[in-house]
């Protein structure tokens, strides 16, 4: 991550998020230009992604429990250009706040009709659209009475390895954002960038709520040094 983006990116060490204490590097990062290799990146073939994988609600025999939603948005670079034909991977808890993962010990029910995993390629304007259910909040053991706000995980590739980004999208008006050290680790100027906005007309009338969330990746080349 470029030093020039310290205004939006979290630090590595954020003691309120306890797991950072033993995993954050203590030494300063070494600043280098991306190598010619790192200004290119993996190219995912069209057939890597099935169209059905953009809809997380059709995986089971019947509809999953929860509040159905459509999420639309664009993937852009810092110059505002669309990032085209780029892989977006998403994953999330079910409507009860449970992941189908062996180390998730939250005593909430699994939903046999919801796997919580999807992927999509952006189109020629950088647009994406996924259909899912709103994930539930869930408790975690970072601190007493800790609960993670509802969130959807995103894994992004851009068009260059140097653009690789994994992040989380949150929901507007969630009171748990104020007590979540993972969200709060982001400097104030960056926090709103992680929150989707309600966009009802992107939803399905009488069926699903609409949300919009745009994502911006750094440029593929070196970020200019700030003196």
């Amino acid at each position, binding site marked *: *991550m470029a030093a020039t983006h310290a205004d939006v990116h*979290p630090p590595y060490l954020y003691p309120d998020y306890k797991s950072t204490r033993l995993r954050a590097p203590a030494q300063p*990062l070494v600043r*280098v230009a991306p190598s010619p290799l790192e200004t290119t990146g993996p*190219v995912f073939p069209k057939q890597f992604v099935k169209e059905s994988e953009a809809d997380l609600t059709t995986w089971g025999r019947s509809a999953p429990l929860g509040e159905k939603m459509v999420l639309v948005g664009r993937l852009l670079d810092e110059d505002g250009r669309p990032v085209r034909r780029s892989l977006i991977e998403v994953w999330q808890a079910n409507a009860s706040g449970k992941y189908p993962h062996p180390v998730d010990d939250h005593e909430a029910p699994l939903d046999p009709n919801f796997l919580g995993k999807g992927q999509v390629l952006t189109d020629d304007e950088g647009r994406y659209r996924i259909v899912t259910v709103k994930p539930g909040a869930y408790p975690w053991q970072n601190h007493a009475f800790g609960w993670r706000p509802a969130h959807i995980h995103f894994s992004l590739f851009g068009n260059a390895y140097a653009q690789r980004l994994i992040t989380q999208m949150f929901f507007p008006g969630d009171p748990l954002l104020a007590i979540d050290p993972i969200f709060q680790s982001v400097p104030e100027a960056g926090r709103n960038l992680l929150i989707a906005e309600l966009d009802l007309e992107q939803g399905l009338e009488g069926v699903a709520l609409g949300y919009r969330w745009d994502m*911006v990746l750094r440029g593929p080349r070196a970020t200019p040094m700030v003196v």
Partner: protein
Amino acid sequence: MPKPTPSQTVGPFFARELLWKDGGIVLFPGRGDRITLTGQVFDGNGAPIFDALFETWQADANGTSPSGDDGSRPYGYGRVSTDTEGRYAIETVMPGPFKGPGGETYAPQISVAIFARGLLKALHTRVFLAPLEVIKDDPLARAIADPDRLKTLIATLDAKDPKVYRWDVRLRGAGEAVFLEF
């Protein structure tokens, strides 16, 4: 200019979502010397990190950046998680050296990104598959300068198996690996 989207942790729950069958076998269209890069990832207490996502991106045997795919997956890209002992393994080909825009030579290397619970941002670095004397003119080796720190990025050939390169990664504290910002 729009601001970049902030990074957040990959969290502990990604194994079923992000891992692929054979994700640790890196595909290339051409030939090359098959090698395995393997080692363990440790935290600041020296405990193995059992829930890291370990990704690689590298040039082919001729030093060319991969482009394209085999019809199912991209060339040149590896993705695995560490196991209960913090161990990862990537089967790939020996990357060739390549040139930078100013004519500088990049020594044989693999670009690595590590994601994990407790990492609010990716850790980016490069692991060298050649000894110190061969990499000394590499742009990153020059930028690091300190040989003790540089050694944290040099994989060593296994004494018993010349196809295996060993590289352990310490995220924090004694022997902490050098990590990069682009």
